[in-house]
């Protein structure tokens, strides 16, 4: 694949290096002269100097034949517009944008820039994963497909411990897909009996979280455990 990476900071540089190692053709674009000269010593002709916000810089890098554009500069506006132009003007198949300030994510969505990746959000997700008190953890959101996969830890006061999976009234639009018990995952059958400490994985339509929390969460408690 031919991949254009914009922004030769730590993220962009390492990304370009990895992609080159995997055998892809890569052009890394950097607008800071000094940074460009540093990176160029290692990546040589795979680095191009210029402001990728400007169309001619993208064209010089061969955006017309690029299969993918990845914008990972430290500036959210730049990342948004580079991807917008790549997608809408040059019809690049695949774009990936970095979100620096997670509060800007809605702007990326508004302009149709997907997927967008935010390190801050990822760390927050990990934090949720590590701290079970958070209850329901989003593992994967497929926005376009309108599906999400969540994980939930069954605490000792859970409604469903000791009950058969076949007896659960799963909300419409949700499906129990896996149980993690003592470090091993398995696909439950109707006869599987849930235990305290189990982690369940479910796929569901967006907006079903609260119903699921009510089913699997603490007894006599609906959505939030305040």
């Amino acid at each position, binding site marked *: 694949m031919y991949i254009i990476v914009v922004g030769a900071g730590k993220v962009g540089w390492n990304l370009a290096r990895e992609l080159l190692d995997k055998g892809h053709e890569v052009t890394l674009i950097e607008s800071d002269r000094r940074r460009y000269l540093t990176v160029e010593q290692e990546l040589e002709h795979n680095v191009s100097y210029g402001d990728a*916000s400007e*169309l001619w810089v993208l064209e010089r890098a061969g955006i017309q034949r690029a299969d993918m554009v990845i914008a990972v500069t430290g500036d959210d*506006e*730049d990342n*948004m517009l580079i991807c917008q132009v790549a997608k*809408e003007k040059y019809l690049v198949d695949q774009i990936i944008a970095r979100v620096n300030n997670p509060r800007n994510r*809605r702007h990326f969505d*508004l302009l149709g820039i997907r997927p967008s990746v935010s390190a801050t959000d990822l760390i927050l997700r990990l934090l949720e994963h590590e701290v079970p008190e958070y209850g329901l953890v989003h593992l994967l959101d497929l926005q376009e497909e309108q599906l999400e996969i969540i994980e939930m830890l069954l605490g000792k006061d859970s409604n469903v411990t000791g009950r058969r999976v076949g007896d659960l009234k799963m909300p419409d639009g949700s499906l129990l897909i896996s149980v993690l018990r003592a470090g091993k995952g398995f696909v439950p059958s109707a006869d599987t009996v849930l235990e305290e400490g189990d982690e369940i994985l479910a796929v569901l339509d967006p907006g079903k979280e609260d119903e699921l929390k009510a089913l699997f969460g603490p007894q006599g408690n609906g959505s939030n455990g305040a």
Partner: protein
Amino acid sequence: MFVLIVGCGRVGSSVARATLREGHTVSCLDEDPESHARLEVGLEKSWEDLGGQFTVGAGLETEALEAAGIGHADVFIASTDGDNTNIVIAQIAQRQYEVPCVIARVLDPLRAEWYQRQGLNTVCPTRVAIDMLEAGVREAAGRGGAAAAAPETR
């Protein structure tokens, strides 16, 4: 009309004053509190006394845009010193808040032209300068420089 101007530098502040003088309601949003002083250059009273609004905040912050009144703006002008900021916030005004008239200042002529074709109203000062300078050269060539330029041109 309610006019919201984001970016209150030389361009934004001049447009703000002129618009206010014509009797419209004007709200300005700028990151720099100091730009309030630029608004009041040449005014006999304070900006607020004349009915103007001024909000400190970044154009990309939804809260700041809403505090400045984007929800009921008839006209939205993006005139910060950054092309990318202007293009992004103008699209937010268009798509999210459905402001009827949105104008973005874009210095880069190539992108100003492309976004214009995508339905975003752009104003390109660089394009204006290029056209005027080209016209100036052409005019000079038509006068005194005619003899020197003549062999090639025709």
